[in-house]
């Protein structure tokens, strides 16, 4: 069974002018059908205003659909009874690390979710320890979150979600406010969780480098899913991505430009290693 499924999902909001009169309706999410299998690493791409964040908020039942349905682990998000089950199943990490850390000490923040769920004290401590170890923040458990770097704060946020033992984690642009090192830190932690603990990851981002390891990529534009497939398939369509105002990873772009100038390289090269290998092959062919 799919862990997350959306059927003809639509979310509309009302645009108003300065006096509060209705100007019209905007579809932030327009007829989206997603199917995510347990254990997958999914990336959702799109530039600002493409509706990717709104879509993410539906998956945790923070926002309710205008039309269509969202199923999380088989449960409808509009079902009030299932609300807390859904939030336990699909944890969510938000963009701004400062605005989602509640505790004044790292370990207390990680314990916040389990406390809300009514987990017994002894087990909370076990969960906190294992979650902090999973994201490599155990050494900082007694620190104040204010003294941590952005990447570290975001890893604490992930640990906070992890302590609730979710089947799926939705990360809504978790790296948008971080420096390149912090970004790498967070993505490494997320990948490790996906591989070691078989947790489904849905990563919302506009950084291309972060999606190359995903199992499947969805590209959104104006509320619609306009492209979907493996990273290789997506990144082989450089022209189309440019039309959608998305960048491609530098290596992919270089390979694409070289290909355009006549060098015979395969499409959709994603990593430097792959690029070097293909370049050597091409060089050998020319000899």
């Amino acid at each position, binding site marked *: 069974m799919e862990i997350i499924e959306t059927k003809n999902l639509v979310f509309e909001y009302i645009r108003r002018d300065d006096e509060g009169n209705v100007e019209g309706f905007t579809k932030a999410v327009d007829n989206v059908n997603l199917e995510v299998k347990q254990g997958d690493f999914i990336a959702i791409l799109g530039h600002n205003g493409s509706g990717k964040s709104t879509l993410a908020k539906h998956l945790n039942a923070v926002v309710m659909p205008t039309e269509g349905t969202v199923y999380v682990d088989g449960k409808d998000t509009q079902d009030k009874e299932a609300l*807390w089950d859904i*939030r*336990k199943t699909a*944890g969510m990490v938000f963009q701004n690390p400062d605005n989602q*850390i509640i505790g004044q000490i790292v370990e207390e923040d990680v314990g916040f979710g389990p406390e809300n769920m009514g987990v017994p*004290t002894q087990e*909370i401590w076990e969960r906190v320890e294992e979650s902090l170890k999973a994201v490599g923040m155990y050494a900082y458990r007694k620190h104040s979150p*204010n003294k941590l770097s952005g990447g570290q704060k975001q890893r604490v946020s992930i640990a906070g979600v992890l302590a609730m033992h979710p089947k799926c984690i939705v990360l809504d642009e978790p790296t948008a406010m971080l420096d390149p090192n912090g970004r790498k830190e967070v993505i490494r932690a997320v990948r490790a969780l996906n591989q070691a603990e078989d947790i489904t990851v849905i990563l919302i981002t506009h950084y291309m480098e972060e999606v190359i390891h995903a199992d499947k990529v969805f590209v959104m534009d104006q509320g619609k899913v306009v492209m979907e497939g493996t990273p290789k398939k997506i990144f082989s369509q450089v022209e189309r991505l440019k039309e959608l105002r998305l960048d491609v990873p530098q290596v992919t772009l270089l390979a694409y430009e070289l290909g355009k100038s006549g060098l015979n390289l395969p499409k959709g090269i994603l990593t430097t290693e792959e690029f070097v290998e293909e370049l050597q092959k091409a060089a050998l062919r020319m000899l």
Partner: protein
Amino acid sequence: MLRDITLGQYYQTDSALHRMDPRIKLAGTMVYMISLFIYKNITAYLLAFLFLAVVIRISRVPFRFMIKGLKAVMFLLLITAVFNLFLTRGEPLVSIWKLTITKEGLVNAVYIVIRLGFLIIGSSLMTLTTTPNQLTDGLEKIMAPLKIFKVPVHEVAMMMSIALRFIPILMEETDKIMKAQMARGADFESGRLLDKAKAMVPLLVPLIISAFRRANDLAMAMEARCYQGGEGRTKMKPLQYKRIDYMAYGVMALYLLGVILLGRLFPLHLI
């Protein structure tokens, strides 16, 4: 400069007082305050002084560190003393120009300084040895009976701890906004008081807007982590009385009894 302000001035060290349950420290502070106001005589204050000295010794907080945080309050203390000294009616002692110092005024001034001084040092001893978090936990537990009267005890405690968490963040933000505006020629330093107050407006507006935005984000993040109020919640660090806490309750009771008895039986007066 704004970041230098510390609230809840906790002093990190390991002492019996630090290890005590926040509830006994809150209750103890209350008892101590009451003991200062039962009698107005030297016997009671002597006992209060001895008690305070012993507790400070136990707390292992350097006395100099305690005094450092009290400079602003000292000024207030001085003003109160001066007012009492000059404005109390009674038997005149010294007369300078239009001001007269009376015998009663002198006694009042000395007593008020002793009372307020002990009160401030006593209560700051509590904040010095208790983390803000323990303090809110203790308050929540102590006030729990008020739930019967529909007082939202858990919510208040949660708000307090969130406020404490966001103070440094908002301080930093204020600093950032100030610098950004100073870079564009804003002037926060010069001018009269009114000008300075006016200069604060462009600082406060963005700060308040951003605080609301943060509150909105935080509420969403809390809901996403299954927060649904105090109902059905467990504690990661539940408060539990240990032997030392029961002993402390005993000591406080003895102290209060001592002040009442000695203050009653052997009252010593200044004049």
